């Protein structure tokens, strides 16, 4: 192992940087050895492909009624059942794999574009929560004393409220809408990341290379930014992967209640919320977005479980 030295400051870099390629290869092997992680990755790859090629997959506009293009005689009525030629739907009627919704919009297009919306919701929401949690947790853990006490007690108060109720209150303060729902879910999630970050900062703070950096006169902020944070990211990534599933679920729940995404945005929770009273005559409008939502959450949960087991051998089953 060559002695890697930071050219600017002349301080040795943490050992984890050396041989990074070898390490990352073995981490990948450990992740791929976890069956849940492989299944999760497969589901998520499929969803990413759907989100990426949504324009190609969906032949209809997800936000516009087909009424201008098709006539009522061709079956273009609100909540029409799926029409698939291979399954015996009359050949003169246009195909709608998942039927039409209450606004006579192609449901397949909405479900497919919904993948884009939901993945975006998951990553952005958790990203915001992770950054905020990382800052709060790192400051609390590294500073200690009364700063730590105040920050963590505030986090405790947030954790005492049931998550959905707290996010409903925050959305009410901010006003209903997809972005505000995402902000609310992100705020509610911050304490979890702050706690995880603080715990890992507390253990890393005592490592020899941190002491070394301090002895060489590196500033507290520099140590935090260059030594502590990079080395405490693993538990945050694991927690974040599990958190994306939860975030997608919670934003969907808010949208279901009418507080999140608004029409015409193709968001699965909102699509179910608008149509659940028609369960009896149009179950396809519940099932397809419901399956998509479950699959997404399942994918992130399985991958998160796999990552946790891969990084924490003590928990291996």
């Amino acid at each position, binding site marked *: 192992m060559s002695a890697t030295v930071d050219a600017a400051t002349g301080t040795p870099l943490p050992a984890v940087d050396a041989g990074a390629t070898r390490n990352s290869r073995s981490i990948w092997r450990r992740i791929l050895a976890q069956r849940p992680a492989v299944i999760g990755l497969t589901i998520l790859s499929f969803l990413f492909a759907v989100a990426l090629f949504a324009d190609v997959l969906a032949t209809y506009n997800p936000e516009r009624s087909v009424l201008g293009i098709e006539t009522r005689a061709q079956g273009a009525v609100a909540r029409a059942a799926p029409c698939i030629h291979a399954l015996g739907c009359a050949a003169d009627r246009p195909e709608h794999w998942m039927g039409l919704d209450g606004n006579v919009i192609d449901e397949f297009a909405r479900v497919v574009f919904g993948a884009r919306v939901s993945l975006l919701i998951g990553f952005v929401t958790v990203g915001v929560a992770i950054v905020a949690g990382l800052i709060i947790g790192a400051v609390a853990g590294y500073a200690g004393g009364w700063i730590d006490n105040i920050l963590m007690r505030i986090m405790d108060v947030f954790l005492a409220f*049931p998550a959905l109720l707290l996010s409903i209150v925050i959305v009410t303060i901010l006003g209903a809408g997809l972005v505000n729902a995402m902000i609310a879910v992100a705020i509610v999630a911050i304490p979890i990341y702050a706690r995880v970050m603080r715990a890992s900062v507390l253990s890393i703070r005592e490592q020899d290379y941190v002491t070394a950096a301090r002895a060489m006169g590196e500033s507290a902020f520099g140590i935090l930014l260059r030594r502590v944070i990079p080395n405490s990211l693993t538990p945050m990534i694991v927690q974040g992967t599990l958190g994306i599933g939860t975030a997608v679920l919670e934003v969907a729940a808010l949208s279901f209640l009418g507080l999140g995404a608004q029409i015409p945005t193709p968001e699965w*929770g909102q699509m179910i919320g608008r149509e659940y009273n028609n369960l009896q005559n149009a179950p396809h409008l519940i099932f397809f977005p419901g399956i998509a939502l479950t699959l997404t959450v399942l994918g992130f949960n399985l991958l998160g479980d796999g990552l946790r087991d891969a990084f924490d051998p003590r928990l291996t089953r």
Partner: protein
Amino acid sequence: MIQFIVRRLFTSIPVMLGVVVIVFILVRVIPGDPCTATLGERANAARCAEFNARIGLDQPIPVQLGIYLKDVVTLDLGMSSKFGRPVTEVLLQRLPTTIELTFYALVFAIVVGMGLGIVAASRRNSAADVGAMMLANLGVSIPVFVLGLVMAFFFAVILKGTPFALPGVAAGRLSPGFRFDTIPEAWGIATLDGPLRGILDFLSNMYTINGLLTFQFDLFIDAFRHLILPAIALGTIPMAIIARMTRSSLLEVMGLDYVRTARAKGLRGRIVLFRHGLRNAMLPVVTVIGLSIGGLLSGAVLTETIFGLTGVGITISQAITSRDYAVIQGVALFVALVYVVVNLLTDISYGFLDPRVRPS
């Protein structure tokens, strides 16, 4: 033990006080006011001044807080601006629905969750284990409202007209037109008054309890049939979490030396599993059961919405939209109380499960 409980209840007073004050201030930060939310287009300056004076909103916020805290001690939670009735009355009427729902959801979660966990751990890596864990993974991933609607479609629409049909979406708590007696009526003490009457009326509103206490078994069955789907929908996420925790905790314990010793003495596998394994594996399971109760209250909002149950979950989401400060505060107080009591019960149960953990 009693000393421990009393001390814990006293130390939880600051937490409760904190929640009351924070919620009190938070609801007043929400844009919009109860007057315009309640009166709508009829709201004008004069009417609102009169409206605010009637429910005490014309005072400065610190004064309002002081009055509120003084009233809370005497169990007076103020007037609901939306219903025009005391908050305690609204809560007493709607709490039974939520308590019944969450109780059956929790029973489902514990029984099925621990059952799956035990089966999975005792036949590790078998088809039963893989199946149980797949079910658990699916259980934590399926949204409460999707599961509720899918089950409602199957049991209320597909099976309609068969003996297996169950009441589905927006079906409420009882079949339409179902008549029943309250507990005081059934017991022939309808003239009773005072706090005892209040308690009995509260219990009467939990229809399954009412049905059992007054031998109105048709009431019990009808109410229970209406609760099956909502309770399963609500209980599935905690069920899955409990199943996973039971399995991993049991596997860890079953690998310990004293379990091997018990096996070596020739004890039957089932006795080792239940007496030596399960009992010692219960601590983390009890912890997750306690933690999942907050989640049940969140899920109750969605479950009550789908199945048309007017419980606390629906009440709080309505109260937030209509800026009904007193009701929001009342429900928040209840949630905080549940949080404190559940934590206390969890700590007490540790002592029973593991004699080394003595409450102190």
